[in-house]
C-alpha cells in the first residue's frame, strides 16, 4: 500500500483528531491572512490618496505620524513651484470628518477650482464651485450615490450647510468616495489658513522625475517626496506601525499554531506508539514512518490553509463593515495573501510535526511495541 494511501486513510479515519488539527491550522492561517489583507487594504486606502492627483510624485511633510497631519505652508508651495523641472504643483488640504455613525471617516479635499483639471478631476454633473465660495462643495460620484445626493441638494459638513454644485469623478474609488471644497473655505473651517497637506507635482516633459525629487529633497529637507506607494511608509509612520503590528501578530499566530499542532500531534502520536512500532517491525524504514507522520501533517496543512483562507475572506469582509473602519478599510485580497496563507500552514505544520514525527521514527520498534 503506498504511503500516501495510508496517510489519506489515517486522516480520514481519525476524523476528530484531523478536524481539531485542521481547525487549529485554519485559525492561524485566518489570522495571518486577515492581518495581511487588512494591512494591505489599509496601505491601499492610505496610498490611494496619492493616486487621486495625476501627478508624477507627491510631497508631504517628513516624519509625521499620519500623512494627514502633514502641513506645508504657502511659501514652501511657492518654492516647490519655482523648482526647475516642475511644470505644476497643486497644493491640497485633506481633512476627515465624521458625518454620522455609518460614515465615520469622510474625506474632504480642499482644492482650488483652477487646479481641478491638472489634478485629474472631471466634473460629471453640475459645475465646479467658485474659488472664494463659502457654502459650496462637490461630491465624488460614489459619495453622491452613497448619500443619495444630487446637484443642487444640501449637504452638511464642516458645521455648515453646503450646496452641492457639482459631482466629480477622479477615476479612483478613494477619490470618488470623497468631497471637494474651495481651498480657502476648507482651510477656514479647519483653522489652518494658508496650509496644505500635500502637494501633487507634475514635471516638465523630458525632465527625469528623479532629478526633480532630488533637487526638492536637497532644497527642502523638511519634506518627503513620494514617487511609489512603497515609499509611502517614509512619510506615514502610522502605516509602518500598523504593518509592523500585523507582522508581529502573524508571527505570534504561527508560533501559537505550531505549539497547538505540535502538542496535539505529540499526544496523538503517543497514543499511536504501538502502531509505529508495528510498522517498523514489519519492515517500514524510519524515513517511511517520518513520511507517514509528516504526510498526515501536510494533508491537514492543505485542508487548514483552504479553510483558513475562506475564513479570512469572511473575517476581512466583516471587518470592512465595522463602523470605525467603514470607508477606511477596503479588504485587498491578492494572490500573495493566499500564498502567504499556504506558507503559514506549511511552516506551522512543519514546526509542529517534525519533532513528534522524528520521535515516532527514531523510537526502537521493540520499545514501541511494548508501549501500553
Amino acid at each position, binding site marked *: *500500500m*503506498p*504511503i500516501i*494511501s*495510508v496517510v489519506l*486513510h*489515517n486522516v480520514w*479515519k*481519525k476524523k476528530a483528531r484531523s478536524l481539531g488539527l485542521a481547525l487549529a491550522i485554519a485559525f492561524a492561517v485566518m489570522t495571518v491572512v486577515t492581518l495581511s489583507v487588512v494591512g494591505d487594504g489599509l496601505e491601499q486606502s492610505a496610498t490611494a490618496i496619492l493616486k487621486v492627483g495625476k501627478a508624477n510624485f507627491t510631497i508631504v511633510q517628513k516624519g509625521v505620524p499620519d500623512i494627514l497631519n502633514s502641513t506645508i505652508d504657502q511659501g514652501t508651495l511657492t518654492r516647490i513651484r519655482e523648482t526647475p523641472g516642475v511644470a505644476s504643483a497643486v497644493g491640497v488640504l485633506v481633512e476627515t470628518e465624521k458625518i454620522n455613525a455609518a460614515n465615520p471617516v469622510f474625506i474632504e479635499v480642499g482644492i482650488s477650482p483652477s487646479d481641478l483639471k491638472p489634478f485629474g478631476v472631471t466634473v460629471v454633473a453640475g459645475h465646479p464651485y467658485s474659488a472664494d465660495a463659502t457654502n459650496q462643495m462637490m461630491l465624488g460620484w460614489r459619495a453622491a450615490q452613497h448619500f443619495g445626493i444630487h446637484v443642487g441638494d444640501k449637504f452638511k459638513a464642516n458645521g455648515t450647510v453646503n450646496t452641492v454644485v457639482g459631482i466629480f469623478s477622479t477615476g479612483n474609488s478613494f477619490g470618488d468616495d470623497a468631497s471637494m471644497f474651495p481651498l480657502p473655505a476648507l482651510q477656514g473651517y479647519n483653522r489652518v489658513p494658508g496650509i496644505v497637506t500635500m502637494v501633487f507635482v507634475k514635471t516638465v516633459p523630458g525632465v527625469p522625475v528623479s532629478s526633480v525629487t532630488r533637487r526638492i529633497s536637497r532644497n527642502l529637507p523638511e519634506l518627503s517626496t513620494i514617487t511609489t506607494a512603497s515609499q509611502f511608509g517614509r512619510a506615514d509612520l502610522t502605516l509602518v506601525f500598523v504593518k509592523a503590528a500585523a507582522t508581529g501578530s502573524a508571527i505570534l499566530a504561527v508560533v501559537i499554531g505550531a505549539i497547538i499542532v505540535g502538542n496535539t500531534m505529540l499526544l496523538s502520536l503517543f497514543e499511536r506508539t*504501538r*502502531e509505529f512500532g*508495528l*510498522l*517498523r*517491525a*514489519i*519492515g*517500514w*524504514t*524510519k524515513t*517511511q514512518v517520518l513520511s507517514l507522520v509528516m504526510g498526515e501533517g501536510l494533508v491537514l496543512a492543505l485542508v487548514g490553509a483552504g479553510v483558513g483562507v475562506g475564513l479570512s475572506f469572511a473575517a476581512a469582509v466583516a471587518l470592512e463593515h465595522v463602523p470605525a473602519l467603514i470607508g477606511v478599510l477596503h479588504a485587498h485580497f491578492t494572490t500573495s495573501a493566499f500564498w502567504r496563507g499556504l506558507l503559514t500552514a506549511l511552516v506551522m505544520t512543519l514546526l509542529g510535526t517534525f519533532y513528534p514525527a522524528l520521535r515516532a521514527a527514531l523510537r*526502537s*520498534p*521493540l520499545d514501541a*511495541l511494548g508501549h501500553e
Partner: protein
Amino acid sequence: MNGPGAASVASEPIIEVVDVVKVYRDGNIRALDGVSLTVARSEFVSITGPSGCGKSTLLNLLAALDQPTSGVVKVNGRDLRQVKDLSRYRREEVGLVFQLHNLLPQLSALANIEIAMPHSRGRSQSRAERARDLLAEMGLASAERRVPAQLSGGERQRVAIARALANDPGILLADEPTGSLDSASVDNFLQLLRRLRAEHGTTIVMVTHDNEVAAAADRTIEMSDGRVVMAHVS
C-alpha cells in the same frame, strides 16, 4: 551442532544462534544466558517454557528487533550485527506474527496486508492482487473490506499471517500466536502453519507457553531461566 537446541534434521541451517547472552540495561536481568540453537530450512520449531524464560527475547533477536549482549545470531548465513538495512531484513527475510494488537484498527484486512509492501515496485493494483491472493489462501477472501473489529480472533491472526507473508519471506516468526484464540481457532491456525510449511517450504519459529500447541511443530525447544534445557522431536 551440539547441545539440546541443535537441529534434529540434517539439512542446511537457516538460523544459527551461538552462545547468545542478553542482559537488560540495568544489568540485573539476564534474559538469555548462553543460548545456542539451529533451525533447518523449512523446519517448524516451537520454543516453549514458562513466562520470563527468555523465549520472546530470543524471537526478538531473530527478528532483529533487538541485539544480543554477546554471542552471534545468524540468519541465512549472515550475522545480523553485520546487516546494515535491518528494515529490509525485517521486511523481506522474516515475517512476524504477534499475539495481540497486531493489526492496525483503522485499516481493512486488505489494507493491513498491503502496508507490509510499502517498497513494492509494482503498481498499487498488483499489491492489492497479492494481498487478495494471500487473503484467499488464508480462507478470508470475503473479508477484505472488514476492519479488525469486524473479524474474529482467529480471522485476525490469519490476516496477520497473510501480512507476514506479503513479501514472501523464508522465515515466519510467531510470538504466542494462539494466546488469544479459542481451541477451534487454535487447531485451524496450526493446520495453516503446517500447510504453509508443506506448500511454501516456510521455516517457522513459534514461541508458545502451551505445550499442546508446541507439539504441533517438528521440534520443540524448551527454555528455562534464559537457557535451552531440552529439545525434542514431535
